[in-house]
Structure formats: C-alpha cells, structure tokens
C-alpha cells in the first residue's frame, strides 16, 4: 500500500465542493472554505464594491453615533428657520435645489430647515442598527426553529411549520401599528428612544423569522439525510451535537446570504412604520423617517432624494454583496 502523492482532486463530478478542482497545486494548500469563498468573492468586483460601500456605511454609522456633529458645523436636529421662506408662507427652503449651499451641501428640510446631510449621517446608525439587529433576531429565531423543525420532523415539524404559517398570515404592518400603539414608551430604565428602537427591532425581527425559518428548515431537511449525520450518530453523537456541531456550520452560508438580503428590506420596513406614525420618536433622524417626512412634501422631490438615495445605495450594496456572497459560497452558482 503506497500513500498517494499530494492531492489535486479533479475527481469530482458529484462533489458539491468541486469548485476547486483543477486549481494549481500550491494554491490549494490548507485553505478553508471561508478562504475559498473569500478568494472567489475577491474576484467579484461588484460584490467587493458592495462590501466596500457597506463598510463605509458602517463607518459612517459609528462616526454618527460617536460625534453628534457632522463637519463640526451642523447638528442634525438644529433648526435653521432663517433659511426658510416664511415671507411667502411656502416654508420651502430659500435658494435653489432645496437650499443647497456650502454650509448645507445637501440642502435643508422645509419648515424647520434642518440640515439634510447631517440627518442622513445621524440617521445612518439607527437605520442600520434596526435593520441589522432585527435581522439578527430573525436569524436567531428562524435558525433555531427551522433547524429543530427540519431535524426532528414529525409533530415538532408540523407544529413549527404551522407556527410559521401563523406568523406569515399576520398582516405585519397592521400588527406592528397595533403593537407600537399599545406598548409603553419607557421600560427597563432605557431612554424612550432606545425602548422604541428595541421595540421596532423586536417587531420587525420577530415577525420576519418564519422566512428564514423556512429556508433553514428546508436546508436541514436535506442536510439531515446526508450521510455525515448518520456517521455522527453511529459514533454516538447526541441530538444537540448533531444540530449545532454538524448541521449548523452547513447552514451558515444560506443564512448569511439571506441575512444580507433581509437587511435592506428591514430598512424599508422601518420607513413604512415611520410613515404610519409608529416609527422612531422625533426628532431622532432615521432614513425611513426622513422619507416619510418627505412624502408630505413630495412636490419638492429633492427632500426625499437624499434619504431615498441613501436607502437605495444601502439596498444595492447589501444586495450586490449578498449576491456575491451567495455565488462565492455556493459552488453551483457559477
């Protein structure tokens, strides 16, 4: 019996991880799946662009959280009614293009003249925070439920699947409105703002989990038929070990991809809630809130252009990155 020489591995028609076949020998040494995904991702210029934009957004959000002023001049909640046309009573910003100027590069809001750029910056962290944390919540609940339903099957599966149906059957917006209206504003010694943020995160996250739950369940259903699960069982592994050590690592890819695609949806959801009067409390800026404010002044489109653009860029970035990630993590996508 001779030990075979170094692997190159071209024997892999049925191999789900076959993407590497035929790669130069040296490049192959000891690379983890993450590294491979990363290598592939790196080649995907568009996805990288998305990732860079996301990174910038996060930087901006952190900066906005730490500094309460942008460019040291403008505060997001500071009024500039001197720049508003009160003379004619239109309450529109004075000057052209919605009051764009050196001091207010993106113009100012009608009525109170707050700086739009500053508000977009200030709004970034809440918008991203709500979107990401809500996503995280959905992912946690959805993954747990989905994995349990898919793995145990039988009545557990039926129960959880029906539960998902219940959640999906709720008119979410209606529900959110009712809930936000009813629940108190202060709790756990948090500031009302944080309470509201928490509440929105909860609502958005809590009602979105079935989507992720379904995906995870489906994946788990097919994964649990894979032989490595039997292999673990034949070694005497218990349920939790199989669930979390064997199955979960294999679910990371679809979850990650879905999560990046869920984030932008959640940003928009927050904006719809703002529009319906149950968003974040004034005067805190959020992109969704700015959009809903802007819709009252839809005759001055510049006012919504910027928050709209911010959301668009975010949505685009997350989608592109998510797509790229999917391609990178899923060898069949090429």
């Amino acid at each position: 019996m001779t030990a075979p020489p170094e692997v190159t591995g071209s024997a892999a028609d049925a191999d789900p991880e076959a993407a590497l076949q035929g790669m130069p020998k040296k490049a192959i040494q000891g690379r983890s799946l993450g590294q491979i995904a990363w290598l592939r991702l790196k080649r995907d210029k568009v996805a990288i662009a998305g990732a860079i934009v996301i990174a910038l957004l996060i930087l901006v959000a952190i900066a906005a959280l730490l500094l309460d002023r942008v460019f040291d001049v403008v505060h997001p909640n500071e009024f500039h009614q001197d720049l508003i046309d009160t003379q004619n009573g239109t309450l529109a910003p004075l000057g052209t293009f919605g009051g764009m100027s050196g001091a207010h590069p993106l113009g100012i809001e009608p009525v109170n003249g707050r700086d739009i750029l500053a508000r977009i910056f200030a709004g970034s962290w809440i918008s991203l925070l709500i979107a990401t944390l809500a996503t995280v919540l959905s992912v946690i609940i959805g993954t747990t439920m989905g994995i349990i339903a898919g793995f145990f099957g039988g009545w557990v599966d039926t129960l959880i699947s029906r539960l998902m149906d219940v959640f999906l059957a709720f008119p979410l917006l209606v529900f959110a409105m009712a809930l936000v209206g009813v629940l108190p504003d202060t709790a756990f010694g948090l500031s009302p703002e944080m309470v509201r943020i928490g509440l929105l995160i909860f609502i958005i996250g809590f009602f979105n989990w079935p989507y992720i739950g379904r995906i995870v369940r489906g994946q788990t259903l097919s994964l649990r038929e894979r032989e490595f699960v039997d292999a673990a069982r034949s070694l005497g592994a218990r349920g939790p070990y199989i669930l979390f050590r064997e199955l979960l690592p294999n679910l990371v890819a679809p979850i990650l991809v879905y999560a990046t695609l869920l984030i932008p949806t959640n940003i928009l959801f927050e904006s719809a809630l703002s529009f319906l009067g149950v968003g974040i409390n004034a005067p805190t800026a959020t992109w969704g809130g700015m959009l809903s404010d802007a819709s009252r002044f839809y005759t001055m489109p510049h006012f919504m252009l910027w928050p709209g653009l911010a959301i668009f860029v975010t949505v685009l970035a997350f989608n592109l990155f998510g797509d790229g990630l999917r391609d990178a993590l899923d060898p069949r996508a090429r």
Partner: protein
Amino acid sequence: MTQHEDSLGGATPPRPASSGAPFLQVRELRVHFPTDDGVVKSVDDLSFSVDRGKTLGIVGESGSGKSVTSLSIMGLHKAGTARISGEILLDGQNLVGMAPDRVRQLRGKRMAMIFQDPLSAMHPFYTVGSQIVEAYRIHNKVTKAVARKHAVDLLDRVGIPNPKSRVDDYPHQFSGGMRQRAMIAMALSCDPELLIADEPTTALDVTVQAQILDLIRDLQAEFNSAVIIITHDLGVVAELADDIMVMYAGRAVEYSSAPDIFNSPQHPYTWGLLGSMPRLDRERTERLQPIKGTPPSLINVPEGCPFNPRCAYAGTNGDLSFTLRPEFRDVGGGHHIACHLGAEDRLRIWETEIRPKL
C-alpha cells in the same frame, strides 16, 4: 502535433475503413475551458473515427474528458464556455465552427445521445410520451397523433411493457431501467446515424444493465448506426465495442480493436486498469494491483507523459517520460498507443509482469 503518416489525424483512418470515409471523424480535437483558476484542458489533441454499423467504446477514469468529447460532437457545450478547435467531421461536414442552428438541425436527427442519469436527464414535468413526441416532431412535420403513435411504437421496441398506457406516465413513475429505455427511445426517434451513449448503464443494476446493453446491441444491428459508448467499466465495452479507445487526462493513450485491448494491451495505464479490476472470469487473485496516485489536474497536466507520476515504468527510458509528450502512434495493426516504452519492453512487461497477475 506533427503529422505522421500513421497518426490518427493523418489521411489514413486508424482502422482501414471497409468502405469510403468513416461516418464520424474527429481530428485533433481540443476542448479547453478557461476558468478562474486557469485553462482546463479537458480534451487535448484527440483523434478517432467511427464507421456506420460499428461501435467505439471510450473508457477512462472520471474526469478524463470522455463526456466533454461527446458533448463537443453534439455541439452541446454552452456558448462561450468552451474553446474548441480541431475538426469533427460528421459524414464529411465539419461540425466545429458550423452555424449553431445547423448543428441544432443535425442534433436529434443525424446524431443522438443517451445520458447517464435518465431521471435528471428527462424533464420531470412532461410525460415520457410527450418528450419523445417533441423529439420526433422537431425533425418531422407530422401531426401529434402520428407522432404519438410513433412514440408508442418506439417504447414498444425498446421493451416497455404496455407502451400504450405507459406513454402517458411521467419519468418518475418509471423504474431506472425503464427510464433508460425511454431515453433510448427518445434518442432513436429520428433514426440517428450516430448514437452516443454516455455511461448509459452506470446508474443501473447488473441485471438491468445487461438488458440495456442487449437492447443497444440489438438496435444497432437494426439501425446500422455508428455508436459511441462511453463508460469506465471495461466489462461493458468488452460486451459491446468493436474498437476501444482508452483516455487519460484528456488524451487517447491507447486505441485498438476490442480483442486487441484485452488480449495484448500495450499502455501502462491500460495495464493498470486491468490490474485494478477483480474479475469474475479469472481465478481470484490474492491482491489487486491498483494504479498508485490520483488522476492529474487538467490545468497543470504533468509534463512529458501525463501518466508519468503514476507510471511504474516512467524511469525506464531516461527522463523522456518527464520531458517529452509521447506521440499517439500506430504500433502495428491499427493498434495505437502514446507511450515512450519500446516495443520489446512493452511486450516483455505485459507478458512477464502484468499478464500473470491478472
């Protein structure tokens, strides 16, 4: 590749054709796939030919380029993915570089293909009958009723019981063997002159495999078409093929008539294949003789003879095996091999070292 009078690419066909030019002639076929990691040379400089009424068996390890070759002949590589060069002459017409639509018109009519996994190769949403009808009506302007009758006839011919009622079944309602029969019926619907069967029985049980092989043989006799059968089971080709081509790393390493290959194989890789196989027809050996190592990467094909890392005799003629790509040449009687070993060495090794251990 330099032209040799005796090389396959040359004017002389590998096996003197009984009448005129061979029906299918492949010359210096190269199929390369540019990928992110480099160019995959799936098929590199491959030449062979098949006559009407004859069967060519192609064997080789997984990834040696068997399927790529057949897909190239059928023109089924996705546009833009493969770089194909060389010539594929079907009845004298070169398929390489031919307008895609003209190739399409030949597909199904003059050449047809059977795939390995009949379940995934058939559309799950359409009945078996309608898929055969569809194949027939592309090339024959007939009414649906006529085509359906034709489909029933075909199913009958490939041995499906109750074809009249089974024609309306969906593929998943068929058993594996019946699916493969249905695939064959579909391929034969327009009486193709060339039939390519890519691992037609790999997914089947032995008893069913035997049925299918019989069927292919019978049908070929009936239609007198040229058949290429691709497999990695030497037993299967032994049953069917007139000629056998052994492929390794995208190239042909040995080519000869079937008895020749089994009785006096001359390439170390073929030896290896024969040695790895436990055989029912021989005394049980104490130990199998595997080929060491694993198949090579098709991006970095080893220099010299691609088989050299796994070949026990690579060192016998200096470093020739490591530097010079051996030519694929006729070593007499239409027996082609690509090996640097001298004729006597080959004979000696076969007779003394290999044969006794089989």
